[in-house]
C-alpha cells in the first residue's frame, strides 16, 4: 500500500509544539526560549556552502551508482541541515560514530566525498583512518555503533578528557535492542555523549509509526536524560541544539538525545524504489521545508549573501562533483592478496597458510594487482 508516513496524532501535535526551530521554511529567523544562535555572516555562509556541496555530491554519487561505478549509494538528500548542523557543532577532539548515510557529517570532519565513496565502490569496507578524523568507519549493522560510541565515551570519561562523543542512528534504529542498551549504559554512567537520531520518517519502506507510538525524543526521559526534537531541516536549530548538548556532555552532565525531525527525500539506497510505498504529496510537502532553500532565502533577505556569491557556491559544488566522478572512475583496489593483511593485528598461522595458497594459485602478479 502506497501511503504517507502518517505520524500518530500525538506525534503530529508534539511536532508542532515541541519542535525547536530558529529558521522557518520561508527563511525567517524566530527566537527560541532555550536555544539561541547568532551566527556570524561567515558562519551562515559556511553552513550554506556545506549543504550545497554535499547535496550536489550526493546527486553525483547517485548517478555514479546508476552508471555502474558504485555498488551502492545511500542518498542523504533532505537531511543536509541535520547533518551539517550537527557536524559543525563537533569540536576537533570530539569523536563521532556514524551510520552509513552520514556523508554530511563526514564532510564536516574533513573526510572528502572521494573517501566517503570508497566503501560504496567496494575498494574497502572502511574508507579512512578513524583516528585521523575522530570519525569512525561507517556502521551498516543498525544500532551496533551506538554501543561502541558509549564505550568510547566511557573511555573519554575515564581519561578525564574534556571532549564529547556523538552517535548516529535513525527512526528505524530506535527499535534495535543495542540502541536501548546504549541509552541505559550512557544514562547510568553519565557518559559524555550526544545521540543524534535523524528521524527521516522512513526505515526503507516502513514509516515511523511502525517503530513507535510516541514521539521518539520522548523515549529519552524514560532512560533518564533529556530528549529534544529539532527541526532537522533548520541548520541553525541543529547547530544550536547540538552545540548545547555537546557542551552539556563535556561538562559532565551526561547524554542527550537529539531527534532531528527531517525527511529522506530520496530512496533508502540506490537499490530501493520508494514509489512502491509512499505518495508524491508527502515528498512535495517536505520539499516546501527544504533545508537549503530556506537558508538561501534568509541569506538573500538579510543581504548576508547575494546571487553572485550563491552562483559561486554552485560552481564550487560542480567542481567537487566533477572531482568525485574523476576519482571514483579511477578508483582501484583492493588487491586480492590484501584481504589477508588486516584480519588480525598479530600473526595468525591459518591466515598465513591461506595467503600462501592464494599466492600460489593466482601468482604474485595477479594476487597483487588492484581490481
Amino acid at each position, binding site marked *: 500500500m502506497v501511503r504517507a508516513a502518517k505520524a500518530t496524532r500525538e506525534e503530529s501535535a508534539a511536532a508542532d509544539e515541541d519542535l525547536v526551530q530558529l529558521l522557518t521554511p520561508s527563511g525567517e529567523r524566530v527566537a527560541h526560549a532555550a536555544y539561541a544562535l547568532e551566527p556570524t555572516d561567515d558562519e551562515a555562509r559556511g553552513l550554506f556552502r556545506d549543504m550545497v556541496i554535499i547535496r550536489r555530491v550526493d546527486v553525483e554519487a547517485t548517478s555514479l551508482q546508476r552508471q555502474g561505478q558504485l555498488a551502492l549509494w545511500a542518498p542523504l538528500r533532505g537531511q543536509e541541515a541535520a547533518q551539517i548542523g550537527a557536524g559543525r557543532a563537533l569540536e576537533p577532539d570530539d569523536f563521532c*560514530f556514524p551510520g552509513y548515510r552520514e556523508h554530511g557529517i563526514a564532510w564536516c570532519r574533513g573526510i572528502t566525498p572521494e573517501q566517503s565513496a570508497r566503501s560504496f565502490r567496494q575498494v*574497502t*569496507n*572502511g574508507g579512512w*583512518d*578513524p*583516528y*585521523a578524523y575522530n570519525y*569512525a*568507519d561507517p*556502521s551498516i*549493522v543498525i544500532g*551496533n555503533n*551506538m*554501543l*561502541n*560510541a*558509549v*564505550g*568510547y*565515551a*566511557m*573511555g*573519554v570519561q*575515564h*581519561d578525564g578528557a574534556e571532549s564529547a562523543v556523538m552517535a548516529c542512528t535513525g527512526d528505524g534504529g530506535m527499535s534495535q*535492542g*543495542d540502541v536501548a*542498551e*546504549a541509552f*541505559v*549504559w550512557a544514562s*547510568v554512567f553519565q557518559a559524555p555523549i550526544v545521540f543524534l537520531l535523524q528521524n527521516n520518517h522512513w526505515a526503507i519502506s516502513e514509516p515511523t509509526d511502525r517503530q513507535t507510538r510516541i514521539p521518539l525524543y520522548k523515549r529519552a526521559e524514560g532512560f533518564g536524560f533529556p530528549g529534544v526534537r529539532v527541526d532537522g531541516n533548520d541548520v541553525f536549530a541543529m547547530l544550536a541544539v547540538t552545540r548545547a548538548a555537546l557542551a552539556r556532555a563535556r561538562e559532565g552532565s551526561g547524554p542527550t538525545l537529539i531527534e532531528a525531525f527531517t525527511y529522506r527525500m530520496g530512496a533508502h539506497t540506490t537499490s530501493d524504489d520508494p514509489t512502491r510505498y509512499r505518495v508524491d504529496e508527502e515528498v512535495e510537502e517536505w520539499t516546501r521545508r527544504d533545508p537549503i532553500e530556506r537558508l538561501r532565502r534568509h541569506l538573500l533577505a538579510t543581504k548576508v549573501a547575494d546571487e553572485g556569491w550563491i552562483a559561486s557556491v554552485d560552481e564550487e559544488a560542480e567542481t567537487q562533483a566533477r572531482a568525485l566522478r574523476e576519482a571514483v572512475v579511477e578508483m582501484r583496489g583492493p588487491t586480492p592478496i590484501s584481504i589477508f*593483511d*588486516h*584480519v*588480525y*593485528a*598479530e600473526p*595468525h*598461522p*591459518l*591466515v598465513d597458510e591461506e595467503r600462501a595458497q592464494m599466492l600460489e594459485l593466482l601468482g604474485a602478479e595477479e594476487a597483487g594487482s588492484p581490481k
Partner: protein
Amino acid sequence: MTERTLAKAINEGLRKAMEADPKVLLLGEDIGKLGGVFRVTDALQKDFGDARVIDSPLGESGIVGTSVGLAIRGYRPVSEIQFDGFVYPAFDQLVSQVAKQHARSEGAIRLPLVVRIPYGGGIGAVEHHSESPEAYFAHTPGLRVVSPSTPNDGYWMVRQSIECDDPVIFLEPKCRYWEKGEVDEASPPAGLFEAAVRREGTDATLVAYGPSVRTCLKAADAAAGEGRSLEVIDLRSISPLDVDAVATSVEKTGRLLIAHEAPTFGGMGAEIAARLTERCFFSLSAPPIRVGGYHTPYPPSRVEEEYLPNVDRLLDALDRAFEF
C-alpha cells in the same frame, strides 16, 4: 610455585595484568562487590576501584559493545559474560564489530579486548548454564578463541590474552574452577596459541581442550590398564589451531580421537579431523573419531553425564579406532 584453584589462578592473572597496565579495565555483571558468580574477579574492585572494575548493567550486547568503544579509545577491556548461554545477545557485536573492525579500518583500529566466558557442563546447572559455544566463535575470522585447562594456564593465558592486540574469546571450563594445581608465576609455560602434550603415548592421540582434557587423561589412565598407550594433547588455543602439534603426534600414533562437550556436528572435532586427515592421511590407521555432545539441546543436567564425553565413551571410541 603456588597451589591455586583455576578460579583463583585466573583472578591472580587479572590482578597482575591490572597492576602492569592501567589501561586494563574489567566489566561485567556482578563482578564488583560479589566478585562474579564464580568469584573469578574476587576483591579486584576493592583493590582497583569501581572505575576499573565496573559492575555493568544487565545486557551482554552492551558489555561487548561498550568494550569495543573502550578499546577504540585505547583501553584493554576484559569483560565477563556470566554464563555461556547468555553470550548470544552479544553475538552480533562479536561477529559484526569485534571481529571486523580491524579489517574494516584497514588496520587502523586494534581491538585488544578479552571476553571471558565460563563454559561447559558438568556442574548440575539449569538450562543455558552448561553450553559450549566455541565453534561459533572459532568459525569467525578476526576472533581468537582459547581455553585453559589447568590453573597454571589459567593464570598465564589470561595475561597473554590481555596482552594480545587482537580480540580473544577466553573460555573458562567452569567445572574445573575448583580444581587445584601448581602455578609458576616465574615464566609462562608456552605461547598463547601453542598446544601442550599433557601425556605422552604411542598408540593413539586424544585431542581436547578446556574441560575435556581431564576426561581424556582419565581415559588414558584407564586405557593404560588395558595395555594401550594414549597421547593426550591439550590444544589450549581453539583458534588458531596448533595443527603442527597434533600432526606430530598423529604421525607417531596413527590414530586420532577428538573430544569436546559441544555437539559434534559442525564442531571443532570436525575441523580437526578434516585438517589432520588432509595432512596425515598416510599416517592414519583409522579415520579420526569425534566424541562430543549429542545433537540435542543441552539436556536437563540429571542426564548430563550421559550426554558429555566421559571415560566410557572415549574408550568405546578407542576400541572402534583399533578395530579398523
